[in-house]
């Protein structure tokens, strides 16, 4: 198992390299000039110097190499330094001071390090998206279990219909719809996510909860639709098995049969699906973040795209890719850990 995990880890390195190359070449091929925002009064030779100062005069492979060095060497150094200096978790360790002042990835918009932007916006995304995912899964599992147990009942039919609707209604429609219903007509919830809101007492905590309800609802609807379908079909596969009949025959209570025997076996594929869905929901959250104005990484990506801020776009897209590859790996390993019948050799 461990060898399998290590081998998969090594295999994911060429995958990530390939993805980084695709992203890099896509952005290289694209037209668009970082100097387009510079005033026309600046003479062309100065512009040329600025271009070279941004590292744009070098050949493509040098640029690619430098970007890789920045991403995989310089930024981790900064991160480790921060961990050992300022963080609570590892702050007791002596300051490593690995970072030697080399050029970090600089955003063309803010003229600051791209990673600062990521660090600022990541918590927003994780809060909203993560909460939505947890809520979605928690709703989906009981629905899936019950509709498989009562196959073809009214509950099952309704559940199937609702999950079909959850699949089909895109978040850019549910988002505005919920805003109009709950924020405008009923006035229960705020329509916009206030990113600078600080939680320091009960009222602010309630406000924070309130402002998270709508984006979480939109995202959770999709998660629920998907996961409950998987849960239902996995339960259906297992409910007809012989060991279920055996368990009933030896007189186990129905609750034990369903909730222990069947559920455990059905959770194996569902857990991997849950792991596989996490990166997708990060990507899909771009739309929801925009509808509600959550200042997360999806929102940052869109702003950077419109501002032609190539380093930020490149880094954020690559972070999405790393998430996908990482969770694919986790799903594969989890599958092996949970199901002893699976042997990787």
């Amino acid at each position: 198992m461990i060898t399998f995990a290590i081998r998969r880890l090594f295999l994911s390195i060429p995958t990530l390299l390939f993805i980084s190359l695709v992203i890099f070449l896509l952005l290289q091929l694209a037209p668009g000039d970082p100097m387009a925002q510079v005033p026309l009064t600046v003479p062309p030779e100065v512009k040329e110097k600025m271009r070279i100062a941004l590292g744009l005069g070098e050949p493509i492979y040098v640029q690619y190499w430098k970007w890789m060095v920045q991403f995989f060497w310089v930024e981790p150094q900064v991160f480790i330094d921060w961990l050992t200096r300022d963080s609570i978790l590892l702050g007791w360790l002596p300051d490593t001071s690995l970072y030697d002042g080399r050029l970090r990835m600089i955003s063309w918009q803010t003229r600051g390090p791209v990673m600062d932007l990521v660090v600022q916006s990541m918590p927003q995304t994780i809060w909203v998206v993560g909460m939505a995912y947890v809520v979605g899964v928690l709703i989906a599992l009981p629905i899936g279990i019950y509709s498989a147990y009562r196959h073809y009942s009214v509950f099952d039919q309704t559940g199937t219909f609702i999950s079909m609707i959850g699949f089909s209604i895109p978040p850019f429609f549910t988002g505005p719809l919920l805003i109009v219903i709950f924020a405008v007509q009923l006035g229960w919830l705020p329509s916009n996510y206030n990113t600078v809101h600080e939680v320091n007492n009960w009222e602010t905590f309630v406000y924070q909860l309130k402002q998270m309800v709508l984006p979480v609802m939109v995202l959770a609807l999709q998660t629920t639709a998907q996961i409950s379908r998987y849960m239902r079909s996995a339960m259906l596969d297992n409910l007809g098995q012989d060991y279920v009949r055996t368990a009933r025959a030896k007189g186990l209570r129905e609750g034990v049969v369903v909730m222990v025997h069947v559920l455990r076996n059905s959770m194996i594929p569902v857990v991997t699906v849950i792991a596989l869905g996490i990166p997708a929901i990060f990507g899909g959250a771009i739309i929801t973040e925009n509808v509600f104005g959550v200042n997360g990484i999806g929102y940052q990506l869109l702003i950077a795209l419109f501002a032609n801020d190539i380093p930020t776009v490149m880094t954020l897209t690559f972070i999405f890719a790393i998430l996908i590859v990482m969770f694919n790996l986790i799903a594969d390993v989890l599958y092996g850990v949970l199901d002893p019948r699976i042997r990787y050799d």
Partner: protein
Amino acid sequence: MTDQPLVSGPDPEIDEQALGALQDKGPMAPPRSQWRDVWDQFKRHKGAIFGGGFLIFITLFVLIGPYIWTLDAQKLDIRAKDMRPVWTLLWDGSANAAWAHPFGTDQLGRDLLATMIKGGRASMAVGWAAMILALLIGTFVGVVAGYFRRADFWLMRFTDLVLSLPILPLLLVAVTLFRQPLRANFGPETGMFILIVGVVGITSWMQTARIVRGDILALKEREFILAARSIGTKNSKIIRRHLLPNVISPITVSATLGLATAIITESALSFLGVGFPSDFPTWGKLLADAVLRMEQFPERVLLPGVAISLTVLSVNYLGDGLRDALDPRIRGR
């Protein structure tokens, strides 16, 4: 079971039954074609019937619509701007609505029904074209990988790599960056159409390729392929004549799902502001443009939103029914 006597005594009725069972009767029912069976199974799935019906209806609506509702979607009529749809008259007699514009008009006085028809045309065209492109790529990759063993490893590794790309961010990047040159070369509308169909098609062929490859791998070892090869059939002919007809059902199912994703992706891109220009409406663009004034004019968001959702819902149900109908293990149950 076998040690029990079959007939306990001289019972003429049972005797007759036993004799009757021994007689070699021909099949009573006339032979049925495969597609007849498929259709019978398909008919039993109510959602699929509804889905197929609605898809045909909406396709006819956007295809024939402009000939019935002949108002020009681009015509500005500033005197008749911001009109409400006729059904608002039901509860609000003083609403600014008239039968001349049954769905109302927008802030520039463009007729909403005509815009919806035109937008539907664009959305459906993008959806179908992107789906067909994805199917072509996916089927090609799947067939080549499944049939030629040497290509299999690399093609499938490549498919896995593409599967782990972050699709929506890359779509956003590609569309934003290549918008200008394509517009300059092909005009704003054709350029955007080519770009969106291209990027959606190129990023959604992987599932089809995987399914087709799996089926081809299994089919390749069957006797009829061996027979075909033994009489000297060329590879290309085996693929076209023997393999492709056999993988048509998984391809059909993934086609429906592809259509749904393509429509949603196009609308999402339009919603994020990187899709078609405003004077070339698609359902997604109409929805995005209307969100700002949603409180006063909810119908402008609801109509395109409901149109997208219903189309995608019906396509999903259609795919569900087709999957059941085309699966010989489920059919006839």
